[in-house]
């Protein structure tokens, strides 16, 4: 039966039917509702962006602005800050903690936290050094053992969380202390073990840089892959009768990406170039972003972070999601510990200590991963760690000691959390939560 309210046209029923049909046939299936506000042209796109920002859907905008402000301020205070040499150092410093931060982004997406990543990274550095140097294991076996330690820690957390329902805050706080103790026990009485300079893990972390030509080839390939993927999606959407991104927009975006990647690469290549370790970090970010946005697993992570009960009822294996995310987080922490040990060419009692933990968590939050779960992306780790390390590097160049550095990093973290809470409140009031 058909009642007047159920006329199967999405438009207002008082329009004459023939015009309606003609109009609908010309418009893509997803743009037929007359209530939809559609941006027209470049000005429309910019206005739509402004509207989104005002309603609290700010994404990574604050962190990009913050990064620009920080860089301008430090380069005014010390012209060496933006020198190619310093920026190459900056990228290398980012890699280890940044890798840990990818794992933090994952647990934050679930609305959980891992406070023990510093200790786990220290433990993995200790296992690497002791097994490789003291026990004489082959390097790949030592690396595997270190990573495996991270996997085991993550499995333990996942088991405790899903089996007993203990808040992750408490489990990982216990882990923070427990694994610090284990790290000290593994290191034994020596307390500090140097990794040989000629081992490839140290070479990888300190000495390996991409040749100039290779770095440009990689930039071009990345941009081509990005443009190709946009084009493919646009074609498939058009074939399915949905609205597609216009070709001009694809070109503009690709050129923008080419500039964002190409200019820094060229600038880094003025001195030592792009470090292999930094490239590994970038690849990990891109791969995690792929898994988060394109796979069922990634969709489930966002769903569990948004509404765990809804995720459970729709048949998602919530336990599996929690366990895999805790395992990934601890494994990224272990990998970060390996990279840090390689860069330092040593593992000691201070590995993973100090501000490692807080920097990794701060980077994820500053980069836009919400503490309330369900929001953020793998790129949060990259943007956040750039901010943290820029502050750290800038303050070191100004000869300010760690007391000031800690205070300023703490203040930035606080600022990021406040921005997160405020934008969440604005999203709620604008119906975008």
């Amino acid at each position, binding site marked *: *039966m058909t009642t007047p*309210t159920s006329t199967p046209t999405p438009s207002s029923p008082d329009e004459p039917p023939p015009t309606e049909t003609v109009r609908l046939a010309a418009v893509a299936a997803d743009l037929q509702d007359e*209530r939809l506000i559609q941006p027209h042209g470049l000005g429309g796109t910019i206005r739509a962006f402004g509207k989104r920002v005002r309603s609290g859907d700010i994404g990574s905008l604050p962190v990009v602005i913050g990064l620009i402000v920080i860089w301008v301020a430090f380069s005014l205070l010390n012209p060496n800050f933006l020198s190619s040499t310093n920026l190459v150092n900056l990228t290398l410093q980012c890699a280890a903690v940044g890798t840990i931060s990818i794992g933090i982004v994952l647990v934050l997406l679930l609305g959980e936290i891992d406070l023990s990543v510093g200790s786990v990274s220290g433990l993995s550095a200790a296992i690497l050094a002791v097994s490789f140097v003291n026990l004489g294991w082959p390097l790949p076996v030592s690396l595997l053992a270190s990573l495996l330690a991270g996997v085991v820690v993550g499995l333990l957390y996942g088991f405790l969380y899903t089996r007993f329902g203990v808040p992750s805050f408490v489990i990982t706080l216990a882990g923070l202390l427990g694994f610090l103790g284990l790290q000290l026990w593994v290191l034994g009485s020596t307390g500090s073990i140097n990794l040989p300079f000629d081992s490839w893990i140290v070479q990888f972390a300190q000495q390996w840089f991409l040749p100039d030509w290779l770095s440009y080839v990689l930039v071009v390939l990345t941009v081509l892959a990005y443009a190709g993927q946009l084009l493919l999606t646009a074609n498939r959407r058009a074939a*399915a009768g949905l609205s597609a991104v216009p070709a001009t927009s694809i070109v503009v975006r690709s050129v923008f990406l080419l500039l964002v990647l190409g200019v820094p690469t060229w600038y880094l290549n003025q001195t030592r170039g792009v470090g292999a370790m930094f490239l590994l970090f970038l690849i990990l970010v891109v791969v995690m972003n792929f898994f988060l946005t*394109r*796979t069922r697993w990634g969709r*489930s992570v*966002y769903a569990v972070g948004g509404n765990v009960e*809804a995720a459970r009822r729709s048949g998602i294996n919530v336990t599996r999601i929690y366990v895999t995310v805790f395992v990934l987080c601890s494994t990224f922490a272990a990998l970060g510990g390996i990279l840090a040990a390689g860069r330092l060419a040593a593992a000691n009692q201070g590995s993973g200590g100090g501000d490692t933990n807080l920097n990794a968590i701060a980077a994820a939050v500053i980069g836009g991963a919400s503490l309330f779960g369900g929001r953020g992306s793998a790129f949060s780790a990259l943007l956040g760690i750039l901010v943290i390390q820029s502050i750290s590097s800038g303050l070191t160049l100004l000869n300010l000691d760690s007391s000031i550095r800690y205070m300023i990093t703490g203040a930035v973290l606080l600022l990021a959390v406040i921005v997160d809470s405020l934008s969440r409140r604005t999203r709620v009031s604008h119906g975008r939560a």
Partner: protein
Amino acid sequence: MAALSAPEVSTGELVLSLRGIDKNFGAVQALTGIDLDIYSGEVVALVGDNGAGKSTLVKILAGVHPQDGGTITSDDKRVSINNPADSNNLGIATVYQDLALCDNLDVVANLFLGHELGRGTINEVEMEKRSWSLLRQLSARIPSVRIPVASLSGGQRQTVAIARSLIGEPRIVILDEPTAALGVAQTAEVLNLIERLRERGLGVVLISHNMADVQAVADRIVVLRLGRNNGEFKVADVTYEDIIAAITGASDNAVTRRAQARVDAAGAPAATVGSRSDDTALPEEDRP
């Protein structure tokens, strides 16, 4: 369309049958000997006062709690529903009162949550296409499927939740208080939606406190009172007062019990063979 099968013609077939269902929570006997039959192409309303056991019964069907006693029969086979997956496999889809939507995900992601299309990677284009065709078939008015569910109105969220239940091609859809939080126009939209589900040959279990809604769309009314069956009526042969009396137990005296016995005798046989959609209480043009 790919998202929804063509309307089935097998209306009036017994799809699921519950007999003597018991459930207790500690010292509280929530359900005692509940019987319920669900037929395809029929809307059965489950009514009762607060604490009557409606939600408990729904949770048993949805696989949230297993029953403590009694049998569930599907297609003449005894089945057990121990978890939500069992419920899904029997073709039961449940739309909960809280809708269970992920506010941070868009409409497409919510519709296909847990059932994403594509091998390895998610096929967003196909999912969006099917979302539109599904929403069009339900005459749903959603402006965009790429906006977070948080920005939709109450009626639109209810529509998304009901549309989502159809993704797995269920045989039975259970709606828990679908109109409780909605305005007049939105309620009418959801009632239209329920009629469209019935036209597709689905068995619909509607839980509602609103007798106007129940009388508008239901074919059969099953009354629960204090965890027991307290009458089963065909909407066509029952008055508002009879239902209220059964819900509140005001009919529970010697005189009304005799009257009730006569109503049951007249109503029950007709109900068990299932009723067609044109048996509803209101004439066609009076429906919202």
